[in-house]
């Protein structure tokens, strides 16, 4: 018996439980709007979610496969309204490209061969036979062994498909604190940043006075220059005379001319502290100083770390946290629920409702949705949209130093890369993987033909991928993929009461996404409070 909702009219229907949609679900339910929140996936988080190992493989294979076109006509009529078909699978599929993965044999054999065979045999019974069959046809014995082991410990993995970290001072953290969603989450600190130098080494980036003092790789003069600059940057708005005339000029120019910061130090400031995603010239002094200041202000709030990492996969956990708020305030949730058509009024061109997989008609004043649920007819395909190349790597030992989380930056041109490559390393401490493993998340703005092309050379510097440097950690599994950043504001064909949320972008954090959620809320409900604190039932003062 298919699920039928009792209530069919809502203030807002939301499609997709991604990051931005979930914040809106929480914010709108909080101020008393009736919210129906649905997702075609059977999990929360949409394209921001995290998967265990098995799920990641399934997802990769799904995206590599062919997607059927929707069987219905391109446009139908339904009770006098336009009924535009939704093809979620196709839309989502089109956002991803150049997906490829590889499994590596573990060279260091700690078990005997007998044990290994037993291992394999057992796993073929426990886990998806289909997976092993599908993947393992071309694998060597060693590789099959790795795959079996990974599948066996699958549930210990929480792998982000759009990994992001959180600055200790910023939009998201303040929102998590003020809304109370922070109570549902746990964090670890990311307190080490490394930058790849042109001497083929990785240098630790010093940010605090303690770091600068104890650094063995920064010269004395550079220590002074860096400290002088950091002290200024922390409070730069109070010294306008220092950057007068440079406001619109490139940040790089300002650093070189006003603080004599050059070479390695300049690279560290631009790409590891300011965290520029493109090229140095793209950022002007005011922008650069703002980002630098935010980084410096983040240090010291929760220890000597500028970032926090959420456990169990940030995108997924945070989205769920906001959905929880929504549910507490009456939001209705339906996962694993497809939508067939959107209904548009012919004269006003407004969205009026939708028809779900069970044929039920549901209506609302507003529709909030991620791009994957928008019918093709309403989207203007932008061939030039930004793309992000990513890789997820499971390795057997840490890179650089042991720790919960670290960040490594490859500046532009350091390994033949056009844009900076950022590598996050997470350990079991973040619940991303089992105790004896580490996960690397690599990302960069796309420039070459594939994600693998964009990231491979950097990966070679970090792990023993070509099997000739035993001092490096060994990879067990690598997944390359590329996804689009589809900017929702680009389509003029959309009705005014359909609010579309952006995909996850190339930035390391959730700041732009949080700001978008706030802006969209402001647009829909001007002058309403955005996620005011929920009174704590344990609070005696109330």
């Amino acid at each position, binding site marked *: 018996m298919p699920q039928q909702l009792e209530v069919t009219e809502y203030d807002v229907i939301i499609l997709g439980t991604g990051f931005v949609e979930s914040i809106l679900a929480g914010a709108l339910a909080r101020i008393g709007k009736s919210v129906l929140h649905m997702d075609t996936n059977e999990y929360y988080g949409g394209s921001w979610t995290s998967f265990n190992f098995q799920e990641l493989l399934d997802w990769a294979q799904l995206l590599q496969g062919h997607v059927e076109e929707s069987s219905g006509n391109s446009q139908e009529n339904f009770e006098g309204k336009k009924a535009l078909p939704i093809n979620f699978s196709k839309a989502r599929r089109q956002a991803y490209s150049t997906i490829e993965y590889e499994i590596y044999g573990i060279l260091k054999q700690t078990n005997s061969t007998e044990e290994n065979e037993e291992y394999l045999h057992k796993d073929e019974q426990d886990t998806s036979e289909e997976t092993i069959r599908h993947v393992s046809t071309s694998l060597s014995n060693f590789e099959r062994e790795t795959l079996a082991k990974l599948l066996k410990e699958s549930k210990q993995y929480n792998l982000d498909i759009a990994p992001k970290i959180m600055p200790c001072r910023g939009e998201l953290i303040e929102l998590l604190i003020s809304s109370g969603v922070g109570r549902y989450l746990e964090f670890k600190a990311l307190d080490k940043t490394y930058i790849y130098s042109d001497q083929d080494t990785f240098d630790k980036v010093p940010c605090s*006075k*303690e770091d*600068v*003092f*104890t650094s063995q790789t920064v010269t*004395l*003069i550079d*220590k*002074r*220059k860096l*400290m*002088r600059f950091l002290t200024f940057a922390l409070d730069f708005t109070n010294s306008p005379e220092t950057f007068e005339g440079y406001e619109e000029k490139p940040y790089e120019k300002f650093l070189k001319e006003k603080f004599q910061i050059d070479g390695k130090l300049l690279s560290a400031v631009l790409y590891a502290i300011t965290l520029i995603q493109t090229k140095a010239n793209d950022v002007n002094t005011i922008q650069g100083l703002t980002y630098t200041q935010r980084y410096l202000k983040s240090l010291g709030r929760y220890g000597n770390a500028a970032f926090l990492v959420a456990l169990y996969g940030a995108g997924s956990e945070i989205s769920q946290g906001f959905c929880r708020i929504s549910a507490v305030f009456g939001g209705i949730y339906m996962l694993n629920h497809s939508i067939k058509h959107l209904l548009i009024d012919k004269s006003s061109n407004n969205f009026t409702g939708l028809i779900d997989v069970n044929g039920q008609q549901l209506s609302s004043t507003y529709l909030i949705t991620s791009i994957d649920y928008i019918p093709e007819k309403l989207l203007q395909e932008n061939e030039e949209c930004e793309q992000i190349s990513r890789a997820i790597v499971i390795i057997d030992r840490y890179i650089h130093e042991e720790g919960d989380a670290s960040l490594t930056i490859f500046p532009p041109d350091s390994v033949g890369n056009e844009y900076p490559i950022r590598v996050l390393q997470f350990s079991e401490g973040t619940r991303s993987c089992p105790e004896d493993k580490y996960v690397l998340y690599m990302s960069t703005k796309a420039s070459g033909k594939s994600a693998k092309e964009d990231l491979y050379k950097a990966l070679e510097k970090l792990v023993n991928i070509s099997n000739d440097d035993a001092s490096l950690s060994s990879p067990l599994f690598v997944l390359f993929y590329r996804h689009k950043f589809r900017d929702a504001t680009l389509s003029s064909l959309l009705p005014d009461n359909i609010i579309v949320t952006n995909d996850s972008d190339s930035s390391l954090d959730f700041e732009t996404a949080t700001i978008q959620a706030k802006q969209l809320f402001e647009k829909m409900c001007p002058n309403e409070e955005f996620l005011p604190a929920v009174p704590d039932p344990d609070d005696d003062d109330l």
Partner: protein
Amino acid sequence: MNHGRKRVKPSAEVEKLRKEKEVTKIKEYRNLVESYFQKKDKKEFDNDALALTTKILSQNPDFYSIWNFRRLILLNGLLKECSEEDKQQTLSTELVFLQELFQLNPKSYWIFNHRRWCLETMQNPDWDKELQLVGKFLELDARNFHAWDYRRYVTSKLSCTTETSLTQIEFDFTTTKINQNFSNYSAWHQRSKLLPLLIKEKNLDEQEKKKLIDKEFELVKAAFYTDPDDQSAWLYHWWLVAQGSIISTSQMNEESKESSNSLNQNLSIDTSERIELLQREINVVKELLELEPDSKYCLQTLANLLSELKSNVKEDSKKIDDEIVTICDRLIKIDKFRTKRYEDLRSKFISNQQG
């Protein structure tokens, strides 16, 4: 002492409320002290007296006369003609009481003093535990000089009883603290106490000595380059420079070793080595001065180094005088609170110029 950190003044209203609460407290306290005087005069060393001292000291651990009275009570009471076990028990209880008081006031001379008395009166003091305790103190506040001083006391006792040297361990401990935050007079001071000991204990030859001292110069250099405004690092640097003229010679007599603070030691030192060291440090400071032309500590240090250099070399005398005068002129402009001091220094070198 606030080490250059700002003090925040409370508002007038808050002050008024606080004063009103205080009046009641002061009355109660005064009554207790009255009782104390009565008991003391009558020499009543009983349990009531002990309880009385506990009350007073819990509020005011700095009232040292009460601590004295307490010790008299213990010696005439619980500790008089008792078994060793009971003695240990009583004094252990005292230590627990002291630990509670420490929470409120980690910087009281008299609490530390009483603790030392207890440990020295005990038959079996646990010095390892004391070392752990003082370690915790320094974790909470790495700049608590009481704790540092107490640490020196405990480690000396510990090394006596175990007959091993803790110098290297303690030296490494100062390294840890300095790495965490080098703005710490006490840590540098401790280091200055341990470095000569270390050299002596390890019986280092001239080359090894020089290597170790050079490493110290590197460390302190990193500190004042990172923050030229931090005086504690500069003080250590001045001390190191002064030591260089003493440690580098084994021919010094005992008297001159005493007055080791003076930079102008005209003794049987290897002059050429000394000049080399001075020149080296002058260059280091001059380099920093280029980046930070208004750093008063840089300028003061440079003036000191140049003045010592002058007394070691005969030529360039006038040139050095001129340099020092220029430095003093700069200091007078930058550091207005100490104008007279710089003018005084300047006058020494101006008169040399004219003479």
